[in-house]
């Protein structure tokens, strides 16, 4: 009886294998329709020259951040189609926490404090706090010269926090605006003495706006831009981190940097691809 059962099981197994085995003349895999790339909401900026600018007339977005998320969409597995969702700088963390977006690629500095609520992949770009003044204004030449001056920084940004910490704490009169563009406009209107944010962002504004000058001053902790992710999504973090590593090592990082920032030397802004932050 047992022998009969074993024989029957073997026959069934062979029959099943015959049914599921691929035919000898199966068409090539490339002939299969390409799997659809799934849409992913990506929080982006609209008004940061060099990093992310949206032209409402042509509906075209340009910038280093734009190049990065589009490249990641086409080159990470599974591929995805970025659906751009405009997010203001102060709302980036909340947009991720609320699930409005799955990624944020928007001059998003990785900080230990933000890591408490969200995760990051990166960094994909490293800069530091810089200072922009009106061209010809020689009152500020060192960091200490900021003492007693009125400096504008974006609301809820690390730039604002940096002006109020470390050696500058309590020495600078800080004022905020909802956007860096707002601070630049106030600087042009002579309402403030200087504008401060990430140095590379300032250079992008200076390239576009005559009459402004980025000083050769850097201060504070480094601004290491990362891709914001939902807290604890380790699989997504590892996928994005690997994508960033490839993006840097295959030379595209340099190519896109030149495209968006011209002849600004790129070495100081390029992170070490072999020492990206671990996903935890």
């Amino acid at each position, binding site marked *: 009886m047992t022998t009969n059962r074993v024989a029957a099981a073997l026959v069934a197994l062979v029959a099943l294998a015959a049914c599921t085995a691929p035919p000898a003349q199966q068409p090539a895999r490339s002939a299969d329709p390409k799997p659809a790339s799934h849409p992913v909401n990506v929080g982006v900026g609209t008004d940061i020259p060099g990093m992310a600018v949206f032209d409402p007339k042509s509906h075209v977005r340009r910038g280093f951040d734009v190049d990065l998320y589009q490249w990641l969409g086409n080159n990470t597995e599974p591929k995805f189609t970025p659906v751009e969702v405009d997010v203001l700088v102060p709302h980036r963390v909340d947009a991720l926490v609320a699930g409005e977006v799955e990624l944020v690629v928007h001059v998003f*500095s*990785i*900080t*230990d*404090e933000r*890591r408490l609520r969200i995760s*990051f992949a990166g*960094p994909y770009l490293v800069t530091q706090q810089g200072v922009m003044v009106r061209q010809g204004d020689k009152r500020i030449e060192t960091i200490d010269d900021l003492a007693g001056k009125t400096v504008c920084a974006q609301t809820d940004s*690390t730039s604002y*926090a*940096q002006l109020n*910490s*470390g050696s500058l704490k309590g020495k600078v009169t800080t004022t905020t605006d909802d956007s860096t563009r707002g601070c630049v406009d106030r600087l042009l209107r002579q309402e403030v003495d200087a504008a401060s944010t990430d140095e590379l962002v300032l250079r992008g504004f200076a390239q576009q706006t005559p009459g402004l000058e980025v000083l050769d001053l850097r201060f*504070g*902790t*480094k601004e*290491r831009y*990362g891709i914001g992710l939902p807290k604890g999504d380790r699989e997504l973090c590892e996928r994005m981190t690997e994508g960033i590593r490839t993006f840097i090592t295959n030379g595209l990082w340099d190519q896109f940097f030149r495209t968006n920032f011209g002849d600004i030397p790129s070495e100081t802004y390029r992170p*070490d691809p072999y*020492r990206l*932050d*671990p996903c*935890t």
Partner: protein
Amino acid sequence: MDASQRSDPESPLKRPWWVIQLLWAVPLLLGVSAFVVWLLLLGNKGQGIADAVSVLVGTVSLVVAVLGLQHSSGRRNAEPRRQGPRKPLPRWIFAAAGAAIGAIAGLFFWLVVVKPDVPVTDLAEISNGNQMTDGEQASFRVPGTPPERRYLFITPVLVNHESVGDCVGSAQLTVTLVRDGRKDPPLQGRLPGGEVRLDLAGTTREARVLIALSMPDQACTVDLGLSEAVLYN
């Protein structure tokens, strides 16, 4: 084999009672062994899980034993008392004796051979652990001269007191054990928050642990501490 054969006490095909018991006892022992190995791999966390599970298993065992006793005594009372040779001892007595011997042996093994873990988190005083910057090194002396157990388990943590800076998330720690003044090969790339296990075997006088900090941002300043330090065998 059909049901009538299985139920016939005189059948030559009837298996001895201990063979039938093995059918459930062996898988149970294998499962428990795998569970114990997993607990050991978990280290200090495994101890907590073992404590909780032991309470549950102990309570269930007590309930099952009491119910079994009541059931067997009830059946014995219902059966007419037979005259004849002295009845052999019930099986539960052998089981209880085996369990008691096992428990005593286990207790002896745990207390004398393995020895309980010794939490030393509060005793490990870190020097140079405050306001650390890139490239700096902190250290602490392992409590005990020599330490009371063979292994040390630590969980280093870093705290960035500023609201800015990617300092903790990008930091790497290099942990070096120094036994009686001799340095062991360093454990590199250890992340803050990760568990580190150090083998203190052979220490005759003093063991120290050196923790070097590496951060890509020179402007970062963090405090180093230990969220957990346990000596164990």
